[in-house]
């Protein structure tokens, strides 16, 4: 019985058109790579892909939340870097727990600041998070003075490089995060509020939803998850650098968009973002396996994104045409 419901839930989460489209995309990617790319479908590589997608997902979460709130968060990378370096500096001196706590706090704080300014001072998310990006990465670099901070205990590094059996730790962590978020997105009041505010802030307000608070929490969460991502990367690299998060926002946007999280707000799911992350990871992995020059990688990724998104349009056109012709045919029959 319980199991049935679970199934039903999963089914309904797939019924979300955006997410199902993402799944479809992923399927195609996967099949194509398996067929055409030598060594893609090997245990080693699949684990490798999963690990990398987990990392992409880890920093896409923040972006996804912001996008569900009809905004976006360009500061994820910078915030991750800032909390990463601060945490690393503590951890390298042996204060593991303290370091982690500080890292997460820094993440939350940055996110919260963005959230407050966005909701209270009505600054568009784009501007605010762009500013926050500059500020955070500035502070991060200023803190490291360009040096890289290293000498991190292996206990801490486990979260980045450790494994349980064959399964890499980041994958486990991100799966847990995914499950939690998917659950709360659907089942928690907060989750529903985020969707509502993103979908139509005005209506949400008329329904007695605390829009401003929801926004703040949303961006704070985005910051928090950026912090987590930062820690995971630090653990993985064994060192923290101020430039760590460069280029994350764009990758995250790619993941979210491929995962069917729309900029309109209130559309898409965290599962979607995860799927998107997988797509992105597969793309990079395949291109490296094929030894495609980085130059072409740039091009292809841009192209794929546009193409995937335009599928909907093409599909709708076809369907429309079919309907009409069918209808007309039946009418001629009746007439």
């Amino acid at each position: 019985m319980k199991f049935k419901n679970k199934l039903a839930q999963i089914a309904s989460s797939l019924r979300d058109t955006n997410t199902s489209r993402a799944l479809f995309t992923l399927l195609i990617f996967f099949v194509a790579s398996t067929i055409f790319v030598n060594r893609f479908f090997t245990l080693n590589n699949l684990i490798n892909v999963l690990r990398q997608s987990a990392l992409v997902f880890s920093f896409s979460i923040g972006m996804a939340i912001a996008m569900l709130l009809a905004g976006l968060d360009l500061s994820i990378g910078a915030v991750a870097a800032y909390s990463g370096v601060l945490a690393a500096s503590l951890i390298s001196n042996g204060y593991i727990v303290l370091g982690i706590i500080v890292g997460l706090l820094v993440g939350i704080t940055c996110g919260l600041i963005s959230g407050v300014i966005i909701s209270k001072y009505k600054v568009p998310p784009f501007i605010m998070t762009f500013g926050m990006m500059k500020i955070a990465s500035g502070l991060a670099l200023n803190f490291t003075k360009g040096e890289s901070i290293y000498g991190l205990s292996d206990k801490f590094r486990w979260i980045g490089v450790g494994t349980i059996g064959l399964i890499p730790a980041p994958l486990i962590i991100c799966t847990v995060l995914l499950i939690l978020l998917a659950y709360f997105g659907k089942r928690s009041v907060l989750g529903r509020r985020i969707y509502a505010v993103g979908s139509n802030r005005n209506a949400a307000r008329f329904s007695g939803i605390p829009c401003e608070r929801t926004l703040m929490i949303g961006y704070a969460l985005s910051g928090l998850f950026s912090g987590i991502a930062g820690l995971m990367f630090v653990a993985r690299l064994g060192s923290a650098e101020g430039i760590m998060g460069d280029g994350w926002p764009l990758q995250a946007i790619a993941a979210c968009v491929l995962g069917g999280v729309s900029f309109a707000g209130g559309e898409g799911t965290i599962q979607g973002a995860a799927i998107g992350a997988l797509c992105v990871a597969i793309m990079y992995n395949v291109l490296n396996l094929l030894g495609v020059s980085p130059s072409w990688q740039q091009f292809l990724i841009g192209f794929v994104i546009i193409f995937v998104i335009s599928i909907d349009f093409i599909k709708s056109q076809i369907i429309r045409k079919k309907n009409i012709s069918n209808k007309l045919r039946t009418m001629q029959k009746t007439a």
Partner: protein
Amino acid sequence: MGKKGKKLHLSGPAIILIVLVVVSSLFINSFIRIGNINNILRQASMLSLVAMGQCIVILLAGIDLSQGSVMGLTGVSTALILSKGVPLVPGIILGLAIAMFCGLINGYLISYVKIPQFVATFGMFGMALGVALVISDSRVIWGFPETVRVIHDGEILGISAPFVIVGIIYLIMFWLLKFTRFGTSIYAIGGNATAAELSGMPVKRNVMLSYGISGLLAGAAGIMLMARMNSARAIMGTGYEFEAIAAVILGGTNRLGGKGGAVETITGVLILAVVRNALNLIGVSVYLQMVAVGFVLIVVYIINQNKGSNPLRKWFPVKNKGLVSGTTGNGNGR
């Protein structure tokens, strides 16, 4: 938009700019030298072109992330063309054509294929950059005739070329926005797309064109950058798109479309340029420069919006629905 003359002198951003200039000339002895002013303006010239393009797109409540890589692409391809011995003018025209083409593709994807602007232009960002890297074999392109440098170093009647070029382009844009149907339509589309559509404006075409212009201007900037460095690389423009957006917003152009223009944009560009220059003159480390720029952006925006109109009218509409329905996006099924 015909006459907002009185609104212009002393718009929020203008005041801020003046304050900035006054303050820095008081506290930084080397700031107010002719040389330095000249310097600030020359540095701003590239950004001002890109920003103008971005401005038009933002007036449509859009965004163009591809500008940076389009700059690179144009620079590189023009460089290659010229080094193949093609004479200056045709070479440049070719380069601009490429830039415009990229822009038009953006426009097409957005207005006809209905891909969200963010996605479309982001995709184009990747594609243009990729092509640029490929054709340049990701090397620095150089060894084209020195004559190119007149674009940046030359002088016309004692005024250095970049100012003249930028000046002309801005005049054209001002005219285009305020005194042509195309211009009005851009404000209209930004303000209420459906209405524009229904009042017989070729909305899709104009949107496409606007992105074309955005690309074109980015290309122009790319060529100027190429001339400035007498060499070109694929990645030389990346980052400009964000700078441009920042500048446009700083200038007080409304993120949700319908408000702003050439004057606002140049103001924004100058604000950024002055801040940067001042910080360099004091010798503030690059990191803290980033921090400072971030702050300025946010703070200035907050100030603007308290002076100007509330850019979130989308979220808190005026009581007369008829008007807002368009801006809240037409999400109705049929």
